[in-house]
């Protein structure tokens, strides 16, 4: 009987070593708290719930403590585990192009086609990427890591994941979480900068109503856009190719089913997998480092630079435009490609100053130009550094 009891107690003691309670570290607790904050922000504040819920829950999944030496094959970094297999799409960079396919299939480029000069705002906002790149270099990161961190300023999660998987795979978790977190925090980050950099008169500028865009123009746009951007930056092909392909599916009018799948079930599936695996990749042992803290600081800075450069560029651009053709600088923030959140911010802030001034349609132009711009910028960085 005594033997049996000692056998049972030995068994229970062994079992205890496998539990999360026995293996928890302060790092795990911190990460679980961060995950809970993400979930809170998504549910209570409705900050990008489609992203923050999967990422937040992913953080919880990735930070359940377990005995790493037991070979349970449950961790995201353990080869052959289910999470590791799902993480393959992030690591090898094939989730982001599929997300871009869906984005292309749901994006209406009409605002941009009707007023193509808005493309330049999308280009100007990319300075956030290169501003952050310079600061990251000054902070001691090497050029490849700095480029991967800088892309956070593009405010484009899939592009950030794609580029960091190629240039700095070891920093990918922190970069992805940082990019998505700040995209969700766009309503908090951007308005103060917009208010700070614009005058009262400028905020009241009413832009000319966009003209109606013909079906032919909408069909030509993805074809010409692809040929032109990819001839210039072939390294952006996976992202730009899928973005414009998705858009052609939408605009051709004859592939409705394919477009609906791309912008519906496909992008939803990939968003779930991407969100949860990116979240799970923040395993405390790999994630809680000084570099991650630096990346978060740089990410915030890059968003600030991108927003400011977009707004300031519009102000500069206005100096060369006719009086009746001026652009409201409040749409400058939407040059960062957080679609459609940053355009929505332009609309909200614009309405605060003039309840009859609807900027959403105009802001969508630089917003989608930002998507193209950040994918081009990612292609340039890849081309320069690999």
């Amino acid at each position: 009987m005594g033997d049996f009891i000692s056998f049972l107690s030995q068994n229970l003691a062994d079992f205890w070593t496998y539990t999360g309670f026995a293996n928890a570290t302060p790092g795990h607790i911190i990460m679980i708290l961060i995950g809970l904050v993400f979930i809170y922000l998504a549910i209570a504040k409705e900050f990008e719930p489609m992203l923050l819920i999967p990422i937040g829950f992913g953080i919880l999944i990735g930070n359940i403590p377990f005995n790493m030496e037991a070979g349970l094959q449950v961790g995201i970094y353990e080869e052959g585990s289910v999470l590791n297999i799902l993480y393959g799409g992030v690591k090898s960079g094939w989730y982001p192009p599929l997300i871009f396919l869906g984005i292309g299939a749901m994006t209406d480029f009409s605002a941009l086609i009707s007023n193509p000069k808005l493309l330049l705002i999308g280009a100007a906002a990319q300075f956030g990427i290169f501003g952050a790149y310079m600061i990251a270099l000054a902070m001691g990161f090497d050029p490849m890591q700095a480029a991967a961190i800088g892309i956070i300023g593009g405010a484009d999660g899939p592009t950030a994941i794609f580029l960091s998987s190629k240039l700095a795979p070891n920093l990918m978790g922190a970069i992805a979480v940082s990019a998505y977190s700040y995209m969700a925090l766009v309503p908090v980050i951007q308005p103060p900068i917009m208010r700070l950099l614009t005058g009262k008169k400028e905020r009241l500028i009413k832009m000319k109503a966009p003209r109606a865009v013909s079906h032919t123009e909408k069909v030509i746009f993805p074809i010409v856009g692809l040929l032109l951007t990819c001839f210039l930056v072939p390294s952006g092909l996976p992202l730009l190719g899928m973005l414009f392909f998705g858009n052609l599916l939408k605009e051709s009018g004859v592939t409705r089913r394919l477009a609906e799948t791309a912008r519906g079930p496909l992008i939803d599936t990939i968003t779930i997998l991407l969100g949860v695996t990116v979240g799970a990749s923040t395993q405390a042992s790999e994630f809680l480092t000084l570099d991650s803290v630096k990346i978060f600081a740089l990410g915030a800075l890059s968003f600030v630079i991108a927003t400011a450069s977009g707004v300031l560029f519009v102000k500069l651009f206005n100096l060369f435009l006719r009086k009746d053709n001026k652009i409201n600088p409040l749409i400058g923030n939407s040059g960062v490609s957080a679609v459609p959140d940053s355009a929505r911010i332009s609309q909200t802030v614009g309405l605060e100053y003039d309840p009859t001034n609807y900027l959403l349609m105009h802001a969508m132009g630089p917003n989608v130009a930002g998507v193209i711009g950040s994918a081009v910028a990612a292609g340039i960085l890849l081309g320069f550094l690999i």
Partner: protein
Amino acid sequence: MNNSIRKYIYICMSVFLGLTFASCNSSDSKGESKLVINEVLVNNVANFQDDYGQHSGWIEIFNKSYGSANLAGCYIKVSSQAGDTSSYFIPKGDVLTVVKPRQHTLFWADGQPNRGTFHINCVLDTIGSNWIGLYDSGKKLLDSITVPAKTLGRDMSWARVSDAANEWEAKGKEESSYVTPSTNNQTLDKNVKMDKFQEHDKNGFGMAISAMCVVFSGLIILYILFKNIGKVSIYLSKRNAMKAKGVTCEKEAKEKKLGEAQGEVIAAISMALHELQNGDHDYEETVLTITRVKRSYSPWSSKIYSLRETPNRK
């Protein structure tokens, strides 16, 4: 179509085509082989040895592409004298003949093909020159090289300067240039591009300027193109509207704002946005709308065809 629009179209098309053709590189577009002979060692005395512990001459094949390439069914031909060419058929059915992207495979020239797929049926001439050719299964020459006579000493190889490069050199004479069987001819122990940036662009200013220039130039070209496409489109829609309304005078069309979006459309969009902005549905309007749903019959969705009928008991 008026002249200015036609001019725009011609300019845009000619700029794009001109740029494309001017930058075409015809020398790169020829159908080059993925597989090349990369390094040859003729006189192996104390160099790399095979699985049998033998020192024999070897031929290294390199897959220069970024996709796998299969050597099965290919031929390696060796000739040390004119008219005396031996041919080795690389057997099919060996998975090891698939060369991974940017990887190497070594063939032992020991004259003993019974030792395995990678042992060819001839030996290399250590005195005279050796011509080696790699052919595909259709006996089309993929690559060939003549290893010069008397240039190479013991355990020296004749190799491309770097993998798949056009220039060849003798390796193994000095310590700095070593023989590299089954591995890169030039060991990359640093990231050249990154080092260049670290050396010349420590603060990242150069990268920022050049990358922003590329981003801007790409989007400026797109802007110019779509500005002109827009002009063409406006012209066409105006022309169609004039045709439909039977207006022939340009002035009249301008007065009637033909081809332009009507104010009502913009008002409707603004109204919809306003509704969306203020449409918090805390209190529903409790208005029921009943619309007749019409479903057209199709045998593809018919339950009669997709469900099994209940068997009849007789």
